[in-house]
């Protein structure tokens, strides 16, 4: 049996007395498209933050590429080959799109500790950033600051910054949230173009889009996994309807 890319066992997180994630276990093999579904407050983003290392778990264990990362910091996990996007766009608004991607590229290189060499003169890095922007169709806006771009373009930039790091595990937190119909199609096409050697775990509310994208779906409610299985299994499961419709 091959080592799963992501393995979570008995993961819990309490904020004071409030359980945000309760005893969640999950196994995501290489290349899988895993979807996390659930109403607001189900604990999906907290679960993401636990995997990414933003919060330490109260209980449980997280393994990435077979390595126990439960006590590792967020930046150490990134160096193992994990990248993520945020539900609330988190970019450098005064910088150009190109600069944002360059910062993403530098994050995995030793260059990040260089206090002397002028970053502007690292031409190979800027070329690579430009190529990454072209991948998400933003190369024509490369020199614009983030402040001068639309919401949809920012969402694509978020994905570009994650892809720039050539991750093996990609966590996407509502990549389609707040987008217009056209923008959604663009981002959807972009997500479908990501090669299969990248394992994707995604949170998304749009059922149609999500179901078309996912191999396996995990439905969460009140911090717990309620249903897990293939698209057909999850759609057919009465608990899914209960979670979404309340009956």
């Amino acid at each position: 049996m091959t080592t799963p890319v992501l393995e979570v066992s008995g993961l819990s997180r309490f904020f004071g007395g409030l359980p945000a994630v309760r005893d969640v276990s999950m196994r995501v093999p290489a290349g899988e498209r895993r979807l996390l579904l659930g109403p607001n407050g189900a604990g999906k983003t907290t679960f993401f933050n636990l995997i990414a290392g933003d919060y330490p778990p109260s209980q449980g264990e997280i393994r990435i590429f077979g390595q126990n990362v439960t006590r590792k910091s967020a930046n150490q996990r990134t160096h193992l080959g994990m990248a993520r996007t945020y539900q609330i766009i988190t970019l450098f608004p005064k910088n150009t799109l190109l600069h944002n991607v360059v910062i993403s590229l530098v994050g995995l290189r030793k260059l990040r500790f260089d206090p002397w060499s002028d970053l502007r003169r690292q031409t190979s890095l800027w070329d690579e950033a430009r190529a990454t922007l072209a991948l998400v169709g933003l190369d024509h806006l490369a020199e614009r600051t983030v402040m001068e771009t639309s919401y949809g373009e920012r969402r694509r930039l978020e994905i570009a910054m994650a892809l720039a790091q050539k991750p093996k595990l990609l966590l996407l937190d509502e990549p389609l949230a707040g987008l217009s119909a056209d923008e959604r199609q663009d981002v959807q096409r972009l997500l479908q173009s990501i090669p299969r050697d990248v394992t994707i775990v995604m949170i998304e509310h749009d059922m149609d889009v999500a179901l078309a994208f996912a191999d396996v779906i995990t439905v969460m409610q009140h911090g717990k996994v309620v249903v897990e299985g293939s698209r057909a299994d999850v759609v057919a499961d009465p608990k899914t309807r209960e979670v979404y419709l309340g009956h």
Partner: protein
Amino acid sequence: MRTPAFWLTGLIGLAALLALPWLVSSEYYINIASQIVIAAILALSLNLLIGFGGMISLGHAAYLGVSAYLVIYLTAHAGFGHLAGALIAIGATTGLAMLFGYLALRASGLGFLMITLALGQILWGVAYRWASLTGGDNGLGGMKRPHPFGLDLMHPTIFYYFVLVFLGLALWCIARFIQSALGQSLQGTRDQPRRMRALGYNVWLIQWMSFVFAGFWGAVAGLLYAYYHQFVSPQALHLTTSAEALLMVIAGGTGTLFGPVVGAALVVILKNVVSAYITRWLILLGVIFVAIVLFMPEGLVPGLTRWVRSLRGRSLKEKKTTVVSAITKDRVL
């Protein structure tokens, strides 16, 4: 992208700094200029933390004071030569910055501010109470200025150029640092620390390295401070010295290269020159700061740049309107 106006302003500024001893005849004013330059180096180092790192420190006088105490003690009381004394003072003070950075960066925001304040005040207390070593309230003196390369630093003009070289070095090194990957990472940690962590950056380490770099330049300022005054007292370590450096940075413009230099000039001139004419000069200082905060909240350098740009934009607009109305008039006629 730097505009021609930027280079022109820079050139005029540089020429004015170089010609200053000829522009002001009195030795008194040349000495004031030397004080401004030393204060500017301290403010530049603090600006690395505040402006580029988002770490507001109220203990930056620690590096100025410790470096000054060390160099005076080593050269005037322990028999060390000037070069050895200077190198040990800078090295040991940078080491102290490593320790203080390690302690202070356990917190962020207000917590960081309070830890730096506490560490600075501990050092002030030590300098004040450990009289057998530091001279207590009477301070430590007896130092003579060195004669590097045969230069007589007792001469005000030569001393001014001597400290000016250090200011030039500080500006150059800090400008390079800001444009480097580490400097850019520091600015990233200021704006989006969480995102930086997710991108693989060790935010703590970046901030600590920058803290130490700032401490190094604080130590250089302390060395020059000791050379200038040939004396140091607990006042150099006191909260008011840290607060003055903070005011210089805020008044000149945080996160800009030349803002702290302008801020240092403002504070030193008010403190030394204006105070000779106005007894309650602190009130004037307060009024000026309130005015800066009200009219140029981003500081003098970025604020003036904004004003000049808006004036130029307005005059261009007026010129355009005049041309358009002349053409329209011409057509009508």
